[in-house]
């Protein structure tokens, strides 16, 4: 990419992709902004004209708004904590030489290939159903009253389901990071008198910090917009309504496109605030 000629050729070649991506993002974004300033009720009169910031005020002043923001953050935070901790432990375990390593590793990735709707339904019906779910049998076996997962522990249930889906991703990235650690470093620390736990704390964990940053950032982006898992389990009831789900309800259940679009703009702002905070916190890990 040294010469002027090759640079302009490169730009020309990249142009279609850039234009496509820009269109992909700009068109929906513009439409969202456009509708957010309109009173637009498809089944109740259609386009009823410009309303200024009315939709924005109504979306925030709704009693569901702040709880939904809180729910979103709890789910994102909970899933991140669980996947990072368990992912690290699983990666350490899978790094040990063992019989059938290849097959075990493929099995570990498997949950990632299951569609969110499917996995959520399986969890809901097979494990968490209060009558015939496996958990209810387990609880009854110990003489306890089965938990009504979806209603009594709706948020916990969703966090468990989503963590199960994302654990393979975290494990895989952390496993490759562990494998890239120079074995001489571990041996050196062993000679330096570090115990297994100190070796993990002083050598392996710092080495993983970069991979953890990547997991944290990518998962946050995807977790902020989880929807299917909530839709097929609680349907947004019992305090499990996230911001994404609230927007869905405004647009499709209340048929209020303008109000939903305003919510969408808030979601963009929330995502950016979270992203900026994350970059601040973990940024120093990335520019090493």
């Amino acid at each position: 990419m040294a010469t002027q000629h090759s640079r302009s050729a490169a730009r020309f070649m990249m142009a279609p992709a850039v234009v496509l991506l820009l269109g992909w993002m700009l068109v929906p974004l513009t439409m969202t902004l456009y509708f957010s300033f309109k009173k637009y009720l498809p089944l109740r009169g259609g386009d009823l004209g410009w309303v200024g910031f009315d939709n924005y005020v109504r979306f925030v002043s709704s009693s569901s708004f702040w709880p939904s923001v809180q729910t979103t953050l709890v789910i994102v935070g909970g899933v991140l904590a669980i996947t990072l901790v368990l992912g690290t432990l699983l990666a350490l375990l899978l790094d040990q030489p063992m019989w059938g390593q290849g097959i075990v590793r493929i099995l570990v990735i498997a949950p990632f290939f299951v569609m969110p709707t499917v996995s959520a339904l399986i969890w809901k019906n097979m494990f968490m159903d209060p009558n015939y779910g496996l958990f209810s049998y387990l609880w009854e076996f110990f003489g306890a009253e089965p938990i009504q997962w979806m209603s009594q522990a709706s948020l916990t249930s969703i966090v468990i389901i989503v963590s199960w889906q994302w654990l393979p991703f975290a494990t895989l990235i952390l496993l490759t990071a562990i494998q890239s650690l120079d074995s001489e470093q571990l041996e050196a620390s062993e000679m330096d008198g570090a115990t297994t736990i100190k070796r993990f704390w002083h050598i392996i964990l710092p080495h993983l910090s970069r991979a953890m940053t990547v997991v944290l950032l990518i998962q946050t982006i995807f977790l902020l917009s989880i929807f299917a898992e909530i839709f097929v389990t609680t349907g947004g009831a019992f305090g499990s309504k996230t911001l994404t789900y609230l927007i869905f309800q405004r647009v499709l259940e209340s048929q209020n496109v303008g109000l939903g679009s305003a919510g969408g703009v808030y979601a963009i702002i929330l995502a950016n605030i979270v992203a900026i905070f994350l970059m601040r916190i973990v940024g120093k890990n990335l520019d090493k």
Partner: protein
Amino acid sequence: MGRIVLNQVAKSFGDTQVIPPLDLAIEDGEFTVFVGPSGCGKSTLLRLIAGLEDITSGHIDIDGVDATNLKPADRKLAMVFQSYALYPHMTVRKNIAFPLKMAGLSAEETNRRVQAAADVLSLTDYLDRRPGQLSGGQRQRVAIGRAIVREPSAFLFDEPLSNLDAALRVGMRLEISELHKRLATTMIYVTHDQVEAMTMADKIVVLQKGLIEQVGSPLELYRSPRNRFVAGFIGSPKMNFIEGAEAAKHNAHCIGVRPEHLEASATEGQWKGVVGVSEHLGSDTFLHVHETGLAPSLTVRASGEFDLAYGDTIYLNPRADSIHRFDAEGVSLGTEQPA
């Protein structure tokens, strides 16, 4: 203190025996070099002493204590790795202090020792840098610093200079020798480079396929190699080997003459050949002589400049007292005493 004794130590990986049972004693304060071609088991032997590999059978005694089943950290040995194995996320200071921190030393004592090590290795200006910001030679020094702060009973070096460029290697070689003289601690040094072995060692252990071929001081090995392998391995350029009728004249299966023990002449001599490539080093000239009828090629060291061109006829005279004789198994029969 730092006397290390290996007693019938053997190592197998699965069914492959990499080190057949061997005995070796390394005296306190000695600079011992394990040398041999790649895959001869020298690094494995070092790792066995360090405790990074379990020995299959035999015993290792360190300072009279049976260390066979001790953990690496409890053997009071420090190791410098080929890749230096510095901790990249720690500053130089923290790297050097790491073993002390693990040993639970007080902050004051740690600081004092780190400072002392940094002074010895002239690292004082780099203490707050990360390994990534240092040159190869500096990283090497940090690795040595991390080893000396522990005040171990012996240092183990695993090919520590192989990642450095030629000029730095010569410099670091001197520094390590200097350090050994100053600390007078036992050092075991693994290398495939016979020049490093010759220049640094008090005692050289030549290994081949896990077997000790010969143990001795550099000059012992140079003057009286026990077999053809040691003769060929020690000395640069390599010894010339001649088999057949010429060897039979000396009552041997094979004779060996070092390039520096061959005198070259343009006019007369015992052996006649044709000059091939000459390598001019200024102080010496290495001539590759062909068509002698003795061996495909003989290497000759001529002092200073030697002006015979490619294709010229050359005559060679071996120094009579420096002809090494070997039997059919390659075992040395000694040099021929002039009658």
